[in-house]
Structure formats: structure tokens, C-alpha cells
């Protein structure tokens, strides 16, 4: 068997591969379910119902998908430059912290101002956190993968500290609830992000922002000088430098951009859904890591990120709704993992062509 690089990637493959991946993943999941004596069709049916069909399911799916869209876009933004920002998790927390702080500080101001300030603060929080691995990568060539990963845990601990182990500004110390279990201050009404209902489907402001960001990101990378530079440096940093591009600055800028997107996702958690800084809720959801999976499945295309976030959000929403004795616990993670495994495996068929022959003949060499 020989594996060789494809000279051209047929367009139909980039659609066929994800679809086939999903089908194959469901086949594997069926095997798992049958092996553990669960009726597969019935289970999938319930999953699908809870995700998309039943009353209000779609709105809940949007709720679950919104943060994934943000973290997915964040990962995709960085990956365009072959930067692996796996700190989307922490950057989302950072955005949630700064967003909530600004919301509390500006209590009483007109709502649009508060909301606008939250978006900016969230973006800034995420960007500042992402700047740390960015600076280390740009100036010390420290691997950004591990540093951004480590910072996730640091910020998770900071968030815990703010609510559980200190008397911080963000912690609720007065309410009845707070005396039972520590929690964050409830944000003022002005800080509630608007939402629109269309045919019973509730669309939060965050979801719309995510879609807008996807469009903006696509435009940025497809049609601007900045995007061109990012692509060149991502492909070959030496070529970028040779062409006179400021590679270090670009690394930093892209990391900050990526962090800012995740940070807005954090602010959206405060403003759209949780209305307080909610450490447990945020740290248990693994939005950041799932976001990387979303981006990878979407092959780092911003529009596909939104779509994939919606699908995986549906799965998560269903898993959450169906939690209980009669539904196989952990099936959602298994399914998500399987889909990704299959997509990763399928990627091989996009990039390479597999040929079965015994003879080794030298391929014509482009350069010797």
C-alpha cells in the first residue's frame, strides 16, 4: 500500500468526507450501544428529538451552540496561521470575568452601553490572556500549545478563587442563596443581552454576534492584506519574513484576535444565559476544548464552524435534556469523539491518495 499526496483535492471530497464521517461514527456508536444492550435506533431517535424536533429544543440547541461557535471561531482564527491556541477555554473564562465585572460596575447605565461595554471588556479579557502565549511564542519561540493549555487551568482556578475562596467584587455575599452556597452576584437587568424570537425560536444576541463574527473572519482572511500575511506566515514563516512581513507582530495579533473571539463568548455567557459569573457552570462545560473539535470538524472554515457548532450544540443539548437513568450517560461524548475520529481519519483521503501496488516507482521530483 502506498500513500501519496493528492495533486488536486476534488471539491466533492470536502463535503463527502464529513458526511461519511458522521455516518461511520453512528455505525460505531450503534456497535457500542448494541454491545451494552441499548436499542440503538430508539436511542438515536430520542437524541435527535431532544436536539432538534421537540418543543423548544431548537432554542435550547442555539443556547448550547453559541459558546461553541465562539470558541470554534477562536480556534479557527488561530489555526489559519498554524497557531494552536487551545486556550479558548481559559480565554472564555477571562471574557466572562471581565464581562461580568464591567456589567456590575456600569449598573444603572443605559442597557446598550452596558451591553457594548461587556462585549468590549470580554474581548479585551480574552485577548489579554491570549497575548501571554502569543508573546512567548513570538519572542521566545515557546510552544503556544502547552502554554495556552496551562493557562486554562490557571484561569479556572482564578474563577474558583473569585467566587469560592475570596470576598471579591464579583461574589454575592448578601443574598439568601449565597449563604447556602457561594455564587456570583446577579448582574443588573441592563446587562441582560437582548434576544429575538422568530417562530418560537429564541435567538440570543450572542448567537447573532457569532454569525457576524464568522462573516467578518471570513472576510478578513479572504480579502485583506492582514489575512494574506497570516496565510503566508502560516504556510511558511520564513517566506513571510522574506517578503518583509512582521511575523512576530502578526503572531501576537492573531493570538489576541483568537482570544478576543473566545472572550466575547465568555461575555455572552454572562449576558445571554447565566446572568452571573458561574464558575461551576463554565468550567464543567468544556466549551473551549469542544470548540477546537468544532473548528477541526469544520476544517477551519468560519461558516462551517457555525454549522458544526449548531450540530454539536444539538448533541450536547440532547445529552443534557436526556440525562437520567434510562438514557445512556456519556453517549454524547462518545458520539462526539467518534465523529471526530472518523473525520480525522477521513482527512487522509482528502490530502492523500491511497494506492495499492507492490512496485515502488520513483515519483518525479519537483526539486532534488
Amino acid at each position, binding site marked *: 500500500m502506498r500513500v501519496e499526496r493528492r495533486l488536486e483535492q476534488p471539491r466533492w471530497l470536502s463535503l463527502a468526507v464529513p458526511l461519511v464521517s458522521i455516518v461511520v461514527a453512528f455505525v460505531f456508536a450503534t456497535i457500542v450501544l448494541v454491545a*451494552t444492550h441499548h436499542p440503538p435506533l430508539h436511542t438515536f431517535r430520542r437524541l435527535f428529538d431532544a436536539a432538534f424536533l421537540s418543543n423548544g429544543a431548537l432554542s435550547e440547541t442555539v443556547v448550547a451552540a453559541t459558546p461553541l461557535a465562539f470558541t470554534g471561531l477562536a480556534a479557527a482564527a488561530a489555526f489559519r496561521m498554524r497557531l494552536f491556541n487551545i486556550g479558548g477555554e481559559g480565554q472564555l473564562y477571562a471574557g466572562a470575568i471581565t464581562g461580568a465585572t464591567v456589567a456590575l460596575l456600569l449598573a444603572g447605565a443605559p442597557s446598550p452601553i452596558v451591553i457594548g461595554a461587556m462585549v468590549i471588556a470580554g474581548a479585551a479579557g480574552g485577548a489579554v490572556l491570549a497575548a501571554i502565549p502569543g508573546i512567548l511564542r513570538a519572542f*521566545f519561540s515557546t510552544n503556544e500549545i502547552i502554554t495556552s493549555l496551562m493557562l486554562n487551568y490557571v484561569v479556572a482556578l482564578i474563577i474558583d478563587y473569585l467566587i469560592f475562596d475570596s470576598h471579591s467584587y464579583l461574589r454575592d455575599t448578601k443574598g439568601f442563596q449565597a449563604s447556602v452556597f457561594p455564587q456570583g452576584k446577579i448582574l443588573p437587568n441592563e446587562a441582560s443581552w437582548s434576544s429575538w424570537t422568530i417562530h418560537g425560536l429564541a435567538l440570543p444576541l450572542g448567537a447573532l454576534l457569532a454569525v457576524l463574527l464568522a462573516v467578518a473572519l471570513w472576510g478578513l482572511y479572504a480579502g485583506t492584506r492582514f489575512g494574506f500575511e497570516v496565510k503566508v506566515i502560516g504556510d511558511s514563516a520564513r517566506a513571510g519574513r522574506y517578503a518583509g512581513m512582521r511575523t512576530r507582530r502578526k503572531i501576537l495579533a492573531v493570538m489576541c484576535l483568537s482570544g478576543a473571539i473566545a472572550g466575547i463568548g465568555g461575555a455572552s455567557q454572562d449576558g445571554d444565559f447565566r446572568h452571573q459569573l458561574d464558575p461551576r457552570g463554565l468550567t464543567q462545560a468544556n466549551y473551549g476544548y469542544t470548540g477546537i*473539535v468544532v473548528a477541526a470538524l469544520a476544517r477551519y472554515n468560519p461558516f462551517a464552524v457555525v454549522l458544526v457548532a449548531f450540530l454539536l450544540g444539538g448533541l450536547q443539548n440532547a445529552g443534557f435534556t436526556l440525562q437520567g437513568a434510562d438514557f445512556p450517560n*456519556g453517549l454524547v461524548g462518545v458520539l462526539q*469523539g467518534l465523529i471526530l475520529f472518523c473525520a480525522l*481519519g477521513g482527512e487522509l483521503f482528502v490530502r492523500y491518495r491511497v494506492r495499492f501496488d507492490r512496485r515502488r516507482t520513483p515519483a518525479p521530483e519537483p526539486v532534488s
Partner: protein
Amino acid sequence: MNNSLLVVVLASGIAYGTPLLYAALGELLAERSGVLNLGVEGMMLVGAVMGFWAVQRIHAATTLALLGAIGVAALAGALMALIHAFLVVTLRANQIVSGLALTIFAGVAGLSSYLGNDLNLARAPARHQFQEIFPKSFQNWPVVGPILFGQSALVYASWGCVVLVALYLTRTRMGLNVRAVGESPAAADAMCVNVTRYRYAHTLVGGGFAGVGGATFSLSITPQWIAGLTQGAGWIAIALVIFAFWRPTLCLVGAYFFGAFTALPFALQGHGVTVAPELFQSLPYVMTILALVLVSSRAARLRFGAPAALGIPYVREEG
């Protein structure tokens, strides 16, 4: 004397550090062969749940049951690693994404919980568990008693593993080969070292170690099955490998160091001092970042840095 802060912290640091040590040794082996596996957390959890399942189901004397359970945990971890190895070695998929996918697949919201739920393992204490093996009289010796003699067999076994892995890497031919595969697969391949086989083997053994690390939780520290009981230990293990500059002996020091940070706030509380545990818990991560920055310069990278081919799929150049 044996209740003094230092002794308590060291003794419990060793106990908390042991699962980290196992998982880190495994990750170290995989990384030395050039495979970065971010799925440690998932492999640990599956190891924990399967080890616990085995101990509940094997009807045998305690020692045998526990040995069997460790074997099952290692096997389960290795099986998880096999998915990763197939994807990244054979199919040359992105190692980071595949590792994360493994964590999602096997982790808290995935297979480990699925199995824990399906095999009805929650809310029951372990039928057998690892206990201190030295008699109480040894443990009462000042200072060394609790630290050296108050530990379970898993701790002593881990010391053996550290020595074995260290000797394996530096003194054996296979160790030389695996280091070559991690540093320069092209050079190794030219000298007829089978890159694929070495990467598979070490990723699988790495998964086995992670499984044992997970079982350390469910059979010794906790000891019962709770979904997500590792609480991020897998990620610390990944950090630990970097912190230890990819050296097994430093892994041991680092694991106990990190373990002690976990234990310190609780020990301090016992002495009437209240500090935020988050402060100490975040130190391993911060120190790992610093360690990484320190080895970033070209000269330092050659001596202490990551294996040069870490994370890079190997494709033989044939023109």
C-alpha cells in the same frame, strides 16, 4: 513529630503525586517516540473505571484481584491509546486534535461515564483497595515512617517504574532507538529502525501507564468510582512531562512537588492557617510555563527540550 506540617505534606504529596507519576511516565514514553497524546485525562478515566470494574468482579484474594485490576486498567488505557496511535501514526492525523478528541471520547462526558453507568459502578466502595503494606510500627518511625513506609504498593511500584523507564531510555538499545525515533525519525529510518512500530509500541505503553494512573484513583486514593474522579490530573501529567524536561527521574520529583501543592492547603488548614488552595494549585501550571520558556532558546532546547520530532507525523521522503 509525624504530625508536623512538612511530614504530612510530603507523605500526602507522594500519595497524590503517584497517579500523576504513572500518567507522566506513560506520556513521557509516548512523547519520547515523537507522539504527543493529549488524551491522558481520557485514558486515565477509562483505566480508572475499568480497574474498578475488575476489582468488583474478580472474585479472588485481595492481592490477585488488585493485580488483575491493574492489568485490566493498563489494558483499557492502552486500548484508548491505540485509537490515537492509529490516527496519528498510520493515518498521520493532527496529534493535538486527535488527543483532544480522545479526551472527549473517553472523558467525563464520554466513554468512562458511559461504562461507569452501564456497569453500575457508582455509589459502591471498592471491594479491595491498595493499603499501606508496612506494619504500623514502621509507620510510627519519626519522619521517614509516614513518608517512606506509610504508602501503598502502587507507590513503591511506581518507584520501580521510574528506575526501569530511566534505565530503558538511557542504557538499552531499544531506548536508544526510541529516542532516535523521537528526535529524528528520518535518521532512525535510514538506519532501519521501524519508526511506525516504535511509535505504536510507546503510545500503547504510555496509554497503559495512564490507565494505571487512573486506577490509582479508583483503587487507592478515592477509592470508589465517581465520574470524572481524576479532576484534571491527566492535564497536570502532560505539564509534568515538560516540567521534568522529558526525564523520568525528574518526573518523580515533579510529581511529588505537584502532589505536595495539592496537599499543602489542606495541611495548612489543619494547622489553623487558611490560604486559598487555588494559589497552590495553580503553581504547577505556572511553573510549567516558566520551564517551557526556559528551554525555549536553541541551545537549551537541544539539551533539555522536547524531542525534536514531537507532534510531527513521519512520512518517508521518496521524492
